[in-house]
């Protein structure tokens, strides 16, 4: 009886170990395949900025086609935060998409900049202090594994084209 219990415990321990390693390997492989494919799609990203001086508002739109080249479904949360270097936030935009393997979807992020924040941008244009943080949260394997990537982007050049 005790031998059976011991064998059962060892098998369960081994199965947990193997499932942990397979989970890590499968999710990392899936995420790597996704990023390898993403490099081609990023070139088709459309960024547009429109501003209205009369109503003192503006909007920054980013449309990014994203294809899941992996073999597992992905949930992608994209977020863009627009702020001045002194820390005051100008606007935030978020988008979430569930992307099946091989599927192509477009992430659309539109940051609406209201009157009070619009004036902050105008005042800071010459200082080139408008920045953005673009972050992606990738969740795979039924949301069990997640990878969060965030990168600061300088956008001050984009605002000078508005008018």
């Amino acid at each position, binding site marked *: 009886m*005790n*031998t059976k*219990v*011991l064998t059962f*415990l*060892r098998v*369960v*321990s*081994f199965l*947990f*170990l193997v*499932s*942990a*390693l397979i*989970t*890590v390997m499968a999710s990392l492989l899936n995420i790597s395949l996704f990023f390898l494919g993403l490099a081609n799609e990023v070139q088709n990203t459309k960024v547009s900025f429109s501003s209205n001086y009369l109503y003192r508002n503006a909007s920054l739109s980013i449309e990014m086609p994203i294809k899941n080249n992996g073999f597992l479904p992905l949930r992608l949360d994209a977020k863009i935060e627009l702020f001045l270097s002194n820390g005051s936030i100008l606007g935030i935009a978020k988008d979430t998409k569930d992307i099946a393997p091989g599927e192509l979807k477009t992430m659309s992020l539109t940051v609406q900049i209201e009157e009070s924040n619009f004036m902050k941008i105008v005042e800071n244009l010459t200082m080139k202090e408008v920045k953005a943080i673009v972050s992606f949260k990738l969740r795979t394997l039924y949301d*069990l*594994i*997640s*990878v*969060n*990537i*965030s*990168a*600061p982007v300088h956008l001050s050049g984009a605002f000078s084209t508005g008018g």
Partner: protein
Amino acid sequence: MLKKMFFPILNLVTLVILPLILNYYITLNYKESLEQLETLTNISIRSSLMFITAIGIMITILSIAKSFSNKASFINLLSSLGMSLLWFLLLSFAISFGQFPDGLIGMSTIYIKTSPSMPLSEAIVVKFDFRFVMIFLALSLMFSMLSDTLSFKEGLKHK
């Protein structure tokens, strides 16, 4: 004798000799690239390999103690439990890309800089969340330790 030495030799080769050879080889041939990688990502491959070697030496010593001790002895029990713990430490270290102490709880952060002078606030931040996997690893460790303890008790009965 050969049967008893199989696992200690396997541990010695895979966890001590191979990492040491790899460390020596990459230091000799790719020193500049490694230094650049360490500056840009904060990941030190050589330190990670040294950590694996250090844990590997401990695992090898424990596996020798386990192989040459009586099943019902405390040395056997302690070496089995110690080996399970060390394997858990080693796997959690590998899963978190060597980013301790965050790695212990299944979270690791990597900062990727595009130039060495770039401040960390400007770097691309990649955060991995493997907490779910850590639960699986912890359960594996728990069952392994339980079976070791029961095996020890079983040995005491036969004694």
